[in-house]
């Protein structure tokens, strides 16, 4: 599904070169739920941005769904993001001027779906997160947890095969965080591959596989062991977690 080989990403200024990722290697199989942990500045978000085609990289190869995306045009990258990838952000990133239905509809607009198809998908996605009754509300009229569920609905509306979540529970209290996590687990069970960056060791433990990034490299990982180790995965996230 996702394969990164020897990916390097360097941020350059006039004075400093920062190696955000160096010889980064990772393979994620279809249907996996992978938690990515690591200290601040380790390169987690850079990895997520590269995985989501939001940033380029300097060296290496990146294959997504069998497609080498190293030299894709902006249009092609945008199309892949739109069709195959769903994003969930820590700050929800809903568009404040648009109501819930309109927010969920945004990626479908760019995908070129007609009004009827958009309506069906928006309703289905909002039902999936339990907010179908509030589709005309503005984001500011919702709690943090509800907003994150709308963001999840927006990510799901296009039926992506791949969900990238950057600290999805970072701005939520523990109850809301648990609800969102349960929602993500349900989505994963339905077949969507999820990569979740988190600082929360408890949440990381609930993923099928934990990856720790330190100094721009995958430090260690526990191999996915079909089903039996779910929740018991030997994780180094405990040791490396940064609250």
């Amino acid at each position, binding site marked *: 599904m996702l394969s990164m080989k020897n990916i390097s990403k360097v941020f350059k200024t006039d004075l400093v070169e920062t190696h955000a990722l160096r010889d980064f290697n990772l393979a994620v199989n279809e249907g996996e739920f992978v938690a990515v942990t690591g200290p601040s500045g380790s390169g987690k978000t850079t990895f997520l941005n590269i995985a989501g085609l939001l940033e380029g990289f300097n060296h290496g190869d990146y294959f997504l769904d069998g497609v080498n995306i190293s030299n894709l045009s902006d249009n092609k990258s*945008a199309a892949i*993001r739109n069709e195959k990838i769903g994003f969930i952000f820590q700050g*929800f990133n809903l568009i404040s001027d648009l109501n819930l239905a309109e927010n969920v509809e*945004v990626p479908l607009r*760019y*995908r070129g779906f007609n009004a009827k198809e958009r309506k069906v998908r928006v309703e289905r996605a909002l039902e999936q997160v339990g907010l179908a009754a509030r589709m005309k509300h503005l984001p500011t009229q919702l709690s943090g947890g509800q907003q994150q569920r709308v963001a999840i609905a927006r990510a799901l509306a296009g039926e992506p095969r791949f969900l990238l979540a950057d600290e999805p529970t970072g701005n939520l209290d523990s109850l809301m965080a648990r609800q969102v996590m349960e929602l993500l687990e349900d989505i994963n069970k339905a077949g969507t591959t999820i990569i979740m960056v988190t600082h929360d060791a408890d949440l990381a433990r609930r993923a099928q596989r934990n990856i720790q990034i330190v100094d721009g490299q995958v430090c260690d990982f526990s191999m996915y062991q079909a089903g039996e180790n779910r929740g018991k995965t030997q994780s180094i996230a405990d040791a490396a977690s940064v609250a």
Partner: protein
Amino acid sequence: MFFYYLDLAWRSIKKTPFLSLLMVLAISIGIGITITTLNVYKMASINPAGERSSQLFALRLMSQDNDTWERLTPQITYQDAYNLRKSTIPVRQTAMFRTGLAVQTEDPNFSPILEGVRVIDSDFFGLFEVPFVYGGPWDKQVDSEGGYKVVISEEINQKAFGGVNSVGKSILLNRKPYQVVGVTAQWNPSPKYYDVNNGAFNDSEQIFVPFSLAPIEEYESWGNNNSWRHEDIRTYSDKLASEMHWNQYWVELDTPAKQQEYQEWLSRYVEQQQRLGRFKHPEAHGDISDVDKWLKEHNVVPEDNKVLVGLSVLFLVVCLVNMLGLLLAKFLKRAPEVGVRRAIGASRLQIFSQHIVEVGVIGFCGGALGLLWAWGALYVLSSKFDLEQSLAQLDQSMWLIAPMIAVSAAIIAGLYPAWRICSTNPSIYLKSQ
């Protein structure tokens, strides 16, 4: 997607009403000034003869002696005008000049009015396609034998006869009765090309009397009277026989062959006059100019107008630079939202298009408001600063030109801000929102 972008544009404008209003005002003022000057320039540049422009010719003669004027003047002498009327080559021809007469009716309640009057031959009406409400021109016979006939405008007909068909009725001009033979419909060519000598943008005369009556009624010329030598002119007859230039002359020549034939006839006329002791200038000749050439030769559209249009365009550019700054501030403030849109599948081109549509909407609003400014400015220029009415009318084409210029100009101003916002790295804003 266009309608989606329109919807987003409208939401954005509503979200930042003050900033949007500033931008609309900036572009509208630029457009208002540009359209005002452009309108005046366009109205002044219109060739009112239209398709007949190449068939109507103003005639000039270099009748002066050597060491006087070195150029052709737009008027000719009465004696030349009288002689030229004998040619049978033109389809139509008319000698003319402007005079003024006191107008009265037999109604004692009618207050006399002093009106500008054009002294013409009957061909004038056909030559310049003057429309009639009632009646028509006087008979050709009147042009040679004289006759107290008159054609009045609808406006005079309204004042003097209450608007009813006055053909056959009498009207007093300088206390002398003239029989009304025709009433013209609204006719006011701008520029008034048939007599640029007496104010190219003045209104047309409302009353027309036969040229053949000039020696009898001794109509005074209300136009320029230019002499190239000193002459002792004591009587009207002296004036008619003088070398003073005060008449205009137009001919209609509908084919190139006729134009050539008439030009040759004119050369023979000059030679004949030279044999009679006139036209002593070594370059003495006759010249015919079609309407287009005539308007250009007489600088009907002054160069100042072009400079004014140029300056107003520069002002528009200044307005656009201001708008560019405001757009940049507005768009970059929206970078986090754009980051989200990019992350969930919008391409750079789609983001660019969204913002260009928004700029276009602002430009359109600016264009519409600019038209109102232009309309107001023309009204003020006309009512307070004596700009001729014919130039102060907002040309219909401006309703299309103003929004087109405004939208195009706004889009040009919006290219850089739209490019900046679509080029920003979305990942920077996704984490920080």
